[in-house]
């Protein structure tokens, strides 16, 4: 049997032996003796496969697909005896150039395969490309031989996650990270002991799909440095990991390095969620350049106006036509690929509201793409998280179509908590909802409270340290006259704009950071921490550091010792959350099935102040009386005083001889600010607690 020939050439082109290919799967597939190339285009009239030797300036072969190799709208061909590890490939598509009718075919252009699994061209981060390259982003063929051993998705319950949002490069690019290969996937592996010690169990990676850091690059008018597309919310290839994020990218081994990093994270109990950007591509608007989609089938891939211009719901020039059935399938294929081939645990969808717009841009009530993803069998155990708004004004926090599967970045949580933290009055009602997992937003649909991903900061906006150090954004270094970035920051500088020598200001800032950490980590839902907030990382007031590939964005690890008390506070609050299942229950308390009783208090026990002047709020969490666990699980009480004066809080009484113990009090200096779980300090006065100005107190009744 070993000599049996299953596939033999039937055609030839020059020295190349060929055979009609298999239309599915799209992209490249290794088959016995050759490579199957398959690409879709509805409107192309002809297609050539273009082959390059690695890094060669010109192609060594162009093979037209014979007519009989096209099935329907798919061109597919097996090419035998290709040195697949040493070639790069693309396509030329012929067809009408008729922008008014949506067509932009140009046979002069060599196009990237939308399904390319490896993309070369930006192999080393920040290395100036050859601008004369006729084919700058080239497809490569990936062998499917990574050994995952016994690794699989971790399937950690949503409510048990503590998410840590990270930029792969920014996490370790700074020299203070002391890793061997700064700014890479491999370096994340080196930092696993740190992440485990902190207690997080899920990394959310900002975009790692292939993007071009040189897209729209320019010189900063402030620093004179070159500004790059650092964040990478602009896809070149959806199936390929960014080579420049891999220490081995220059060897074309970025896929292996990323897989190995994920495998090692999984071994350490840490999930990996990818931030995916399906709302637009790096090709820009009608003035943009050809990379792939616009030359392969412009009318299929993009939302176009009746005149053939690009709709811009993304704010980035074009909008991917997500509810076209072809594009929908591409997105599904892409996510399935990342789950099966990279063992990814979940996805966060950038500007996800766009995914619910129809082909003319109108919001749909039951968008087929979102429904497909919610019910897909391969994505069945994946976390699906929506950024439930877009740049076209569609805001769906609380109303994003979910089918019980989709969670949301809860923007209202961020805004309400920030306002409460800075001392705005009248937020007790809103904050009580946010802390319970926002039932006002999600309970109507019988969604679990893990529908809410709670965050106070994320990559978009101020870091936590900057949120307490700046009243306004300072984005001059971005070169847009400080007009970019949001203005609704709800931040407060604690009395001085920016870095301060004043001890009182600095003490207040640290306290406010601890207040934020305490509220975030006792809230029901899934908490998300922005990487670096736990060590007081600053971006010097820049709230939109998308182009700042420098020390402004990078985590400065020296702050770990300088801000050790902030780090310890985060660490112990995470530990508290892990110790007490009541903080992680998955159903709303008001729901009959829930087993946790949440009661609201104020300076008087059992009487919360819901008035428009309120700046105080307290709550208690315990098992229902009927729940057997009540005998074993301690009660929890949290008092939040966001007023600038101290207030006495009357404590609710405890049953069964239990007494209140202090776990955290942000008014106290380190190390009295926080205990370790299980080592809380017994209170002398069991009836009242004087909560300091702008302070949070966490008590354990045991």
């Amino acid at each position, binding site marked *: 049997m070993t000599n049996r020939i299953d596939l033999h050439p039937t055609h030839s082109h020059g020295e190349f032996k060929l055979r009609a290919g298999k239309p599915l799967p799209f992209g490249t597939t290794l088959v016995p003796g050759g490579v199957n190339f398959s690409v879709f285009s509805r409107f192309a009239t002809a297609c050539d496969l273009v082959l390059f030797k690695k890094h060669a300036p010109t192609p060594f072969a162009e093979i037209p697909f014979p007519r009989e190799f096209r099935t329907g709208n798919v061109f597919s061909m097996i090419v035998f005896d290709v040195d697949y*590890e040493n070639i790069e490939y693309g396509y030329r598509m012929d067809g009408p150039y008729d922008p008014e009718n949506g067509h932009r075919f140009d046979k002069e252009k060599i196009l990237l395969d939308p399904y390319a699994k490896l993309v070369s061209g930006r192999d080393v981060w920040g290395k100036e490309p050859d601008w004369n390259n006729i084919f700058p982003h080239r497809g490569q063929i990936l062998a499917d031989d990574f*050994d995952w051993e016994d690794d699989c998705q971790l399937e950690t319950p949503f409510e048990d996650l503590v998410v840590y949002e990270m930029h792969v490069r920014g996490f370790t690019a700074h020299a203070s990270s002391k890793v061997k290969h700064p700014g890479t996937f491999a370096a994340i592996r080196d930092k696993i002991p740190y992440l485990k010690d902190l207690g997080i169990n899920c990394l959310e990676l900002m975009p790692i799909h292939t993007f071009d850091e040189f897209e729209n690059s320019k010189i900063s008018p402030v620093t004179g440095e070159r500004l790059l597309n650092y964040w990478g919310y602009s896809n070149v290839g959806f199936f390929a990991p960014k080579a420049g994020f891999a220490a081995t990218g220059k060897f074309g081994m970025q896929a*292996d390095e990323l897989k190995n990093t994920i*495998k090692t994270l999984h071994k350490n109990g840490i999930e990996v969620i990818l931030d995916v950007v399906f709302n637009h591509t790096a090709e820009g608007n009608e003035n943009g350049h050809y990379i792939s989609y616009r030359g392969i089938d412009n009318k299929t891939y993009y939302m176009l106006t009746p005149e053939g211009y690009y709709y811009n719901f993304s704010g980035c020039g074009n909008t991917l036509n997500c509810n076209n059935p072809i594009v929908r399938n591409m997105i599904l294929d892409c996510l399935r690929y990342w789950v099966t081939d990279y063992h990814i645990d979940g996805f966060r969808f950038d500007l996800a509201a766009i995914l619910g717009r129809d082909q003319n841009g109108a919001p749909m009530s039951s968008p087929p793409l979102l429904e497909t993803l919610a019910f897909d069998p391969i994505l069945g155990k994946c976390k699906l998280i929506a950024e439930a708004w877009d740049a076209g004004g569609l805001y769906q926090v609380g109303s994003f179509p979910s089918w019980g599967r989709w969670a949301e970045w809860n923007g209202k949580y961020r805004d309400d908590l920030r306002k409460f933290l800075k001392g705005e009055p009248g937020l007790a009602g809103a904050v009580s909802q946010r802390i319970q997992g926002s039932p006002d937003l999600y309970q109507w649909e019988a969604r679990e409270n893990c529908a809410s991903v709670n965050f106070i900061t994320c990559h978009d906006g101020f870091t936590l340290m900057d949120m307490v150090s700046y009243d306004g954004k300072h984005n001059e270094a971005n070169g847009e006259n400080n007009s970019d970035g949001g203005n609704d920051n709800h931040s407060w500088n604690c009395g001085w704009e920016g870095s301060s020598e004043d001890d009182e200001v600095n003490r207040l800032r640290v306290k406010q950071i601890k207040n934020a950490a305490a509220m975030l980590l006792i809230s029901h839902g899934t908490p998300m921490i922005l990487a670096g907030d736990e060590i007081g990382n600053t971006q010097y007031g820049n709230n939109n550091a998308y182009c700042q590939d420098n020390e402004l964005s990078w985590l400065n690890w020296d702050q770990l010792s300088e801000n050790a008390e902030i780090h310890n506070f985060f660490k112990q609050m995470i530990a508290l959350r892990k110790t007490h299942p009541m903080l992680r229950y998955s159903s709303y308390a008001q729901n009959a099935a829930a087993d946790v009783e949440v009661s609201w208090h104020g300076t008087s026990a059992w009487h919360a102040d819901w008035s428009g002047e309120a700046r105080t709020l307290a709550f208690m969490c315990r098992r229902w009386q009927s729940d057997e666990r009540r005998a074993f699980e301690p009660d929890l009480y949290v008092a939040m005083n966001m007023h600038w004066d101290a207030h006495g809080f009357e404590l609710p009484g405890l049953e069964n001889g239990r007494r209140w113990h202090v776990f955290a009090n942000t008014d106290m200096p380190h190390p009295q600010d926080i205990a370790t779980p299980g080592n809380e300090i017994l209170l002398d006065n069991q009836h009242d607690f004087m909560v300091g100005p702008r302070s949070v107190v966490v008590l354990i009744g045991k």
Partner: protein
Amino acid sequence: MDLQYKMDLNDGIASITLSGSLDATNAGTFQEELKKLIGQDVKKIVFMAKDLTYIASAGLRVMIFAKQRIGADVQVYLVGAQEAVLDVVKMSGLDTFMTIQKEFEG
């Protein structure tokens, strides 16, 4: 520098001394050479890599091939590898199925 290799088989130990760079241009012929070990009584494959200066993905795949095809119970050793080579092996996760040693200890 091109790849040079020397292969000896003694008492079930296949010792392969590598020098130069192992990449896509020479991995194929090297793999053909390794195929000669199939069916022989090989217990251990030892890549002596002191003078190996560079390894690309194609080279790593040859090592995977050695592990998977030459025999189910065969043990693979990478001995004396330079830091640059060792780095690539570790970052791509191959260190989990090869025994890495400074000197061959058996």
